[in-house]
Each structure stands twice: as C-alpha cells, then as structure tokens.
C-alpha cells in the first residue's frame, strides 16, 4: 500500500515553546576531536529585517567524515560524544550561533567526494514548509569539485560559503537571506 506524505505547516510564532527545551548550540563538548569552529550569522527577510522567531537546525559529519547514523556504512570511526545535530533559536537581532567542529569529507553521488559541509534546515513563521540549504567552508580547495555546489549557478555559490570573521580564523560567519538581493540558495529537497 502506498500512502501520501502529510502536508507541511508553518511552525508559527510560538515555536519557542516547543523547541527551547532542546536547544543545542554546542555540538562539540570537550573531548570531541576535530578543528573547532564557531558558526554564526543572521537570518533576514525580504525587507532585510532580522527574523527573530526562526529556528536554525544543522546536521553534519564528524571530523573524519562519518555520520552518527546507522546508514553511514563507511569504515571510519564514530565519535560517541559527537551526534552532529544542533538547534539554535534566533535572537531579537536575527542571530543564531553554533560551536562545532569542521566535518570531514563524505561520499557524494557517482563515486565523488563532497567538500566539507553542514546541512542547514530553517523554520519560521511565514514559512509553510522548511528551507534546506548548506554551508561550506571558506578557502577549502575541495569546494571546486563539490558535486552539489556544482549544481548551483556560479553567480550564486558564494551565498553557500561562510566567511572568516576578521582576526579569528576559527570564527565563521554565514548569513541567511530568505528573499531578495543576494538571496541564499535553497534546495528543492
């Protein structure tokens, strides 16, 4: 028998009630191996106004490029302290923040290898279904051969690549523009 997927509905303005008890902004407690980075930025709407009621969720592999998930059959070590999932609720200025590690490379379609990336899911009032996008790391030579980045029109790829904060190489900044000028690339998932 075949069923049809339940329709999506917005999280609405009161999502904080449901998600605040399970905010995870630090994905990499002491002992997790890998290059430590912070990822932060702002979510803005079509008027450039900060979105103060959105949820940013991230999903990523560990430093070796292994997901903490039974379907990742790669012969690579898992890190019991690293689950790879984060959830941040944006503040009044639209900002979210995570402390994590840079993920390793994971396989892509057709025997390719993907560049290090973090999958990002975004919810907010006014979004009838969530957005999915990705963040890549600045100055990583692997970006040039990433099979997903290659699908993105060249003039829009920069919206998916984080920037170093001035003076701190481990602090990455990545903003989400839901609509308008320099609109972030979102995926049809």
């Amino acid at each position, binding site marked *: 028998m*075949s*069923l049809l997927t339940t329709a999506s509905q917005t999280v609405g303005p009161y999502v904080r009630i449901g998600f605040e008890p399970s905010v995870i902004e630090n994905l990499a407690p002491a002992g997790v191996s890998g290059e430590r980075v912070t990822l932060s930025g702002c979510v803005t709407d079509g008027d450039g106004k900060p*979105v103060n009621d959105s949820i940013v969720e991230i999903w990523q592999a560990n430093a070796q490029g292994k997901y903490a998930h039974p379907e990742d059959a790669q012969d690579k070590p898992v890190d019991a302290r690293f689950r790879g999932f984060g959830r941040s609720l944006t503040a009044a200025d639209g900002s979210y923040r995570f402390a994590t590690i840079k993920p390793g490379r994971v396989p892509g379609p057709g025997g390719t290898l993907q560049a290090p990336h973090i999958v990002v899911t975004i919810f907010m009032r006014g979004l009838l279904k969530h957005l999915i996008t990705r963040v890549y790391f600045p100055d990583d030579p692997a970006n040039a051969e990433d099979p997903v980045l290659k699908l993105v029109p060249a003039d829009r790829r920069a919206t998916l690549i984080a920037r170093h904060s001035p003076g701190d190489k481990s602090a990455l900044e990545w903003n989400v523009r839901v609509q308008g000028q320099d609109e972030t690339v979102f995926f049809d998932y």
Partner: protein
Amino acid sequence: MTGVTGYRRPYFETQPAYLYPGYRSTVKRSPSRPLVLLPHTLSEVTGPVFGYDDVKPTDGDLTRQHEGEPIGERIVVSGRVLDENSRPVAHALIEIWQANAAGRYRHAVDDHDAPLDPNFTGAGRVLTDAEGRYRFVTIKPGAYPWRNHYNAWRPAHLHFSLFGVGLVQRLVTQMYFPGDPLLQYDPMVNSIPDQKARARLVSAFDWETTIPDIALAFRFDVVLRGRDATPMETARS
C-alpha cells in the same frame, strides 16, 4: 560502499508552496529565486538519531508538568508514524506545542486577551515505539485570533515536529480537530492545494483510546516520505 537510496519527492499538490499571499507572512518570507534540485546524498539520507535518553516519561503528559492540573478538556492524542511505503517509523522524535484551553500561548509575543494557565506550559515530546506508535495526554487547545485579516481566528490545533530516519523526512505540521467550523476559513489549511491532503491534517475522534471517565481521544497518523525504491532485502547466508 555503494550508492544511497534517496527518498520520494512529494506528490503533486500535497504540499503548500512557499508563497501563499492569503497567509500574509509568506510574502516577505518565501524564496523568490528558483530552488536548486538537491540529490539525496549520504548527508540527506542520514539525520539525527534520538533515543529514550532524550525524552523523560513525563514529557508525553502535558497535564502533569506542574503542581496542579491544567484547566480544560483532557484529551489523548495518539497514532502512528509511517512512511509512504506503509512502514512504521520507529524511534521518531515527536515534539508538540500548543495553546492552552483558552487559546493563549505561554509566549512573550502572545498578547491575546485570554488567561494563561499556571499549570500548563503546552510543550511535549515522545519517541515512537518499534511499530511507530506514539501517545500524548494533553488539554484540548482553544481557538485564537491572529490578525492575519479582519477577525481572523486559527482553528484549534497542535503543532507537530517530527524527525524520521533521514534528514529529508523531517516534517513540521499541525493537527486539527474534526468538525471545527474554522477550518474552511484558515489560510494555513487552505495553502495546501489538494483537498484530501488538507483533510489528512484533521484528527479523528477515537473512542478506543479514550480513558474512561477521564479523557476523550483523537487519532492522528503522520506519514513521512518513503524511499524512492524499496530496498532489496539481502538474503542472509
């Protein structure tokens, strides 16, 4: 390692579009540029894994989270989480949030002139069992005005957030109640083009799961995406 099996894309007209001007907030919060079709790679068919350590036994009973009992009509909300191939989704994390019986949320931006209930927070979470079953006990939420248009009222609803096995199964939706006269006027419900897909968001009164003399009950099954092709069962040798 071989290739990954992706998930089916949503069936025609069963999901809302991003832009639906009848729901005003979509106008500035919907992408205007074309979406890029994402192949389902290892990054999308994996996703966060939750376990029984992530939920407390009291998290599923929203009537027992404070000293006293919340005001309102106690209800049981239960059902199954399945995928499009009718397979149960085991250990799916379900998070819910809702207004109290008076139609007021415990949230700083809710200024609706209705009372807060000191004994009701309105948030719960459970994990589905091996057959995909879940169960909450809560209070039937009230309808409330939301200023989207003149005299706009949201039908009573529970917000549902679900994590399946793979990230692309992630779903946030709302469960409605049968017979609610506000459903036909609700832009959020009406943003779903297919009438049958709208109807599937309405729970069913469920006599069998009532708690005699304590609580009435509603059943709400949720369907997450299924695999593109049914994976071959490999013979065990």
